[in-house]
Structure formats: C-alpha cells, structure tokens
C-alpha cells in the first residue's frame, strides 16, 4: 500500500505541476493587480500595472487591463485642467471594468460619442459611496477642475456606512500568504470557477456542527416591511452624513443608478432635495440582448454600451440646457 500511496502522491504532484503549466500557457487564470493604500488613505491599485482579466472556465471572457499613473484602470492618464471638458466616472467594479479591454471601456465609448470630451474612470472593485466621496475629497484639487462627476450608486450596497474608514478586509488580500497563493495560476483559476467552493462549504458545515448557529427566526411580512423601512432610513441617514462630511456639489455631481433596484423613499428624497441622477433602467429594459456576463452579474459589452449611451445622452442634455 505504501507504494500505491507514494506513487499516487508523486503522480498527483506531477499532474499539479503540469496543470499549472497548462493554465499559464493557455492563460486560463486571471492576473490580479496589486492594491495599495496611498498617502491620502485612499485604496486603489498600484500605479502602472498591466495584465489580463479572465472570467469563467475556458476563457469565456478575456480582457486586458491597464492601471494608469493614478492607480485606476484606464487607457488614459488623468490630467484635468480648466481648459478641457472632462467627466469623471466614480464607482465600483462596474465602472472599473476589468471585464472589458481597457481601450474599449465605458469612458472610451462616451468619448467616441461626444468628441472633445475626456472621461476619467475612477473605478475600483468594492467602492461604496463613502469610498467615492472620500476619494473626491482627498483629491479635491483634481476633482474641482473636472466639469462633471458621475457617481455609480447601488442603494442596497453602497450606503451601509455613514463615514469613511479603510476597509481592512480588502487590503488583507495583499497579505504575504495571499500574495503567495496568488502566484499559483492554477489555484487562482480553480477559485474563479468555483472548484474550491465545496471545501469551503464543508468547512462551514463542520463549523456549524461544532458550533450550531442560533435557529433563524421566522419573520412575518409586517415585520419584514418594518425592517426594510428601518434600513432605508438608515441608508438615507448615511447618505446625508457622507454628503455633509465630504461635500457634494449638486451642480457638478450626478448619481448613476438603476431605479428598478433603488428604494422609492430614496428616489423621492433625491428629487425633493435636487440631487440629479441618471436612471439607466429604461435603457436596459429596452435592450433585447443580455446586458450581463455569463459567469457574473457585471455588465457585458452591450450593458456597457447602454451605460455609456445613458451618460452621453445626459451630458448632451446638460450641454443643451447650459
């Protein structure tokens, strides 16, 4: 039996090495750029990195990224001046756009649609409204000369806190252990296709057996509505607190949102208080083609084109008004 175990282990090890090699040769696993916390305590990517983002098995989505000098994924450098006409897009992974070639981003599509405009994409995976306003606040000098700032916001995700604090969980991804694990493209690939989920679920099951969680209470519809309302109030308070703390120029700032997943309570507040927003829901509803990728809910090329169109239409309407 010793021979069988030893030989199996040897084969296992050699197959792992061969698979690592094959995953690298066919570039099946994604490259992960390094993140940093800069002097302004703003979390972003280490400037000037390049690589390929891969989604799903068999490279269903393969795209190149380019982290510019400012630490964001974009084909251009961010050099705003008073003379030029600039628009900044600030948001999370949807704006960051690792699922597209950096030279075919939402910003690029807007630039194609409106000649002479420069679009700066300040997108970073996980950025919520606190991250966004804190970034603008810290880089005030740059943002003050940008003509329009558009902030992507998802009501259910992005207003969970009323003050900016560094998200240590995300930065923990840069721990020496994680960096070491990321060196194995095979491991990165396996994680991305969900093959490592069953072991994680098993650990969770074992944890639950050893430490049973308290039985979940059944909540009736009335209670659900009350909790939902409570949450909405809290999120709105967070919005107000962030706006008060970091500032919000209603003349230049515009929110980008999907009214289908935004609370009416919040929308009526925005309308009442004169916060401008672009609602891209009608663009998505009209589209006959899918707007998201196969493997995750990020926008595909069609989705990004529609987002770019909604922003372009908005900017054009502003210019007409002005």
């Amino acid at each position, binding site marked *: 039996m010793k021979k069988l175990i030893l030989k199996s282990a040897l084969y296992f090890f050699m197959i792992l090495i061969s698979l690592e090699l094959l995953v690298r040769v066919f570039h099946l696993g994604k490259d992960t750029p390094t993140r940093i916390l800069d002097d302004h305590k703003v979390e972003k990517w280490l400037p000037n990195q390049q690589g390929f983002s891969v989604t799903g098995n*068999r490279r269903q989505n393969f795209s190149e990224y380019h982290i510019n000098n400012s630490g964001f994924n974009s084909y251009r450098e961010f050099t705003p001046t008073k003379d030029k006409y600039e628009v900044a897009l600030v948001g999370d992974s949807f704006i960051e756009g690792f699922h597209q070639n950096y030279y075919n981003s939402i910003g690029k599509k807007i630039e194609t649609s409106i000649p002479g405009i420069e679009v700066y994409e300040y997108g970073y995976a996980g950025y919520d409204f606190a991250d966004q306003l804190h970034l603008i606040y810290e880089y005030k000098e740059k943002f003050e000369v940008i003509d329009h700032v558009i902030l992507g916001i998802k009501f259910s995700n992005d207003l969970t806190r009323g003050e900016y604090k560094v998200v240590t969980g995300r930065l923990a991804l840069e721990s020496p252990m994680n960096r070491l694990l990321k060196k194995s493209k095979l491991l990165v690939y396996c994680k991305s296709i969900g093959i490592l989920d069953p072991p994680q679920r098993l650990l969770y099951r074992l944890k639950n057996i050893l430490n049973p969680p308290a039985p979940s209470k059944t909540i009736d519809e009335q209670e659900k509505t009350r909790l939902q309302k409570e949450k909405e109030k809290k999120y709105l308070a967070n919005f107000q607190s962030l706006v008060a703390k970091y500032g919000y120029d209603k003349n230049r700032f515009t929110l980008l949102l999907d009214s289908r997943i935004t609370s009416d309570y919040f929308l009526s507040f925005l309308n009442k208080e004169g916060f401008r927003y672009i609602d891209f829901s009608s663009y998505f509803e009209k589209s006959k083609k899918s707007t998201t990728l196969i493997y995750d809910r990020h926008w595909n090329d069609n989705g990004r084109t529609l987002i770019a169109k909604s922003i372009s239409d908005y900017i054009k309407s502003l210019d007409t008004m002005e």
Partner: protein
Amino acid sequence: MLFNSLDFFIFLPIVFVTYWLFFKKNLQLQNIFILIASYFFYAMWDWRFLFLIIASTTVDFFTGQLIHSSTSDSLRKRWLWISVIFNIGLLGFFKYYNFFIDSWIDFVNIFGYEMNSSWTLQIILPVGISFYTFQTMSYSLDIYYKRLAPTKDFISFATFVSFFPQLVAGPIERASNLLSQITTKRSFSYSQCKEGLKLIIWGLFKKVVIADAIAPIVDDIFANYTEYSASTLVLGVTLFSFQVYGDFSGYSDIAIGTSKLFGIELMSNFKFPNFSRNVAEYWQRWHVSLSTWFRHYVYIPLGGSRVSKLKSVRNIIIIFLVSGFWHGANWTFVIWGAIHALLYIPVFLMGRNRIYMNTVVAENSWFPSIKEILQILLTFSLITFSRVFFRSESITDALGFLKQIYSNFGFEIYEHPLGYRMIDYFVLLVLFVLYEYQIRRDERSPFKFKSKIVRFVAYTLIILAMLLFFDDNIDRSFIYFQF
C-alpha cells in the same frame, strides 16, 4: 453521498486506508467494516431508508436458507414467493404506487367517472431501491434454481446487499460473483488498486465533463422544444444520448474502480454501446448487469429462444416492457421499452442477434469499414430516437417533441442557454468518441498505453478537461439514481 462530491473524496481514502491498514488480516472484520461504511454511505442520503435495506437483507437471508433447507418443491416455491413478493412489494409501494393510482384514475375518467387523486401519497423514492431489491431477489432465485448454496454468514450477506460502490446504481451483481468474493479472504493488490484508480478517473471524466457539461443544453431543449426547429431538437436528443451514457457508464466505472480498491471485481456494465452494429449488440453492451438479470430471471424461465418463434417474440416483448417499466413509473419508459422490442425483434427473426457477441467493431484493423460505419450510425440513430420517450416528462411531451421535428423541419444555429460557446462541446464530443474508439477493446482499461509518458499526458489532459468543463452551479446527481 455522490461519487462526484467532496464528501466521497474524503470518505473513500479514509475507508480505503482503514480497511487495508487495520483489517487486512481478518475477513470477518473486513466485512463488518465495509458494512458499516456502506450503511454510513447510504445514511448520508437518508438514514431512515436504511431500514428498508436491512429489512430486504433480513428477509432474503432467511428465505434463502429456508428455500435451501425445504425438501418439498411447493415449500421451496412458497419461500421464494415470500422473497419475491416482499421485494417487489417494496418496489411497488415506493416506486409504482402513485403511478398505478394515477393511471387507474385516468382510466376511469375515460369512461366519464370522475375520481380525485386523494389516494396518492407523498412518497420519497429511496435511492437505489430498484438495484438492491433486484440483487437480493437474484440471491433467492439462484438458491431456488439450485445454482447457489445460501450463506450462513449474515454479515457477509448484508455486505453483499449494501456494498457501497454499487449500492445505489449498480452494477446489479449476482451472488455467485459478488457474494463469493465477499466470503473469500482478500489481500491487497497494487495492480488491482492501480486499475481501480484509473477507472475512477475515467468515470469522473465521463460524468463531470461529458454528462454534466451537456446537461444544461439537453434540459433547455427538452423544456422548450416547442420553440425550436428540427435541427435543434435532433441536437438535443443526440446530446442526451451522450449525456445518459456519460452519466451512467461514468457512475459504473467509478463503482467498479472503487470496488477494485477493496479487492472486489464487479461485472462490467458498459462495453462501448455507441459502437454497436445492431440493436442486439447494443443490449449486449448497454447496462449489461440489468439485461443479464432479465435474461437469467425472466427471459430464460419464460422459455427464452428455445421455444417457438412466436413465443420467443412474446418473451422478447415481455422483457423489454418490464425493463422499460423498471426504469421508472411512467408510460414513457414502457413506450421506450416497446420501441426497443420492435427494434430487436427483426434482428432476432433474421438470426442476427448473436453475431456480434464476442467481437468489436474493426476487430482486426484500425478503421471500421464503410458498412460498419453505416451500421453504427443507424443503430445509434434508432437508439437515440427511442430516447425521446426516455427523456420526456410525458407521452404528450414525447409526441409533441417528435411532431415538432416533423412540423418545424429546418435548420437553425442553436445558442447555449447560458451563452457558452457551442463549438467547445462539439469538439469535446468528437474527441471523446475518437478516444473511446481507440480503447474499444477493453472497457476496463481506459488508459492502456505502453508509454508512461503518453499515459501521464492522458491523465493530465483528462483532469484539465474536468477543470475546463466544471460547473459548480449545475445539479450533479446521477440520472440513474431516480430509477
């Protein structure tokens, strides 16, 4: 516990190492350990149904002894009937009760009597019941026909009934093969274990890469057949042929491979049926353990082919209908069986049902002849046609599916329901068929290459394919578990 789950990949090494490390010198302890492991394996699905296995085991253990010790034929027959009625009763209640009630209500409704279905029950079908009841019955039948002496060792017999590698989906073993191995001292064999591991890898490939990858396409086409044209429907049922083959033969390979790890050889269940040159050969290669069971315990007792042609044809119809019904409590399976009977009978009447018994396609050459290619394509097409009934939820759906092929005859480019590239699947299937053709002479040695390097490359590519086609979101259970 599924063979393609993480639970099994933790369970198997623990059981394997414990078995050979601590119990290799004592057969009784080996069997007790295997029995406990098997019950644990089954209990992971639903422990309540363990009692059914234990009941079936107990009844057949004692009836077997009583059949053997009875001196009069009538008494022997009586004990046999007790075994058969008990096992068929279990099967009838858990698998067919609701079907019979619903069919009766439908029948009565035809004559204008209105009946509601208050008699139907919420019954869970115990996994593997069709397999282990047939296995225990074969034991009693073999004793009755004096082919076998009963065992006096209950543990060995219980291990034979519940041996975990083949408990839930076969191969359906006969006591003369499996029980005799269980009652014989087993010692560790490096080469046997090595062969077992190879079969496990190959079975996993067939399940994870072939069956599971195709499943969403087949599900989509059969669920929305009214929206598709003929080319897509033909594609759907053709892919289903590969899916069900990959699924069930993959399971069987893992079962046979796992058994080898414990020093036990199970019978082959699939012998490359897709290369069959006529329907008779197909049934010598597809789900061999079930067709052998029906041949031994139904066809031959009815007279087999040693009676008049007419009676032989009747016997063929009976076994195919029963075989269809065994697969599931739905008229679609009965129709599926009937189609196979209709396909088999002409082959039988022409005396061509045994001509390919011990040969494979292109026996002495690299490539098949044009005639063989045409025969294979015709057989595959006929079998695939019958699978419309096998896969459809109801006869109405199956007929609707076929009508749609006829009425919406045309070609369209099918797009994967989740947006994946279809070309990947076509390339995969072509490579799979070519590889199976290459290894067609021995279903138990999928990696029979002289060169170690070639073998290593094959393992690596097989595992790479699993990584390329793995999808955590799909239902990974085996199709034959529902039977």
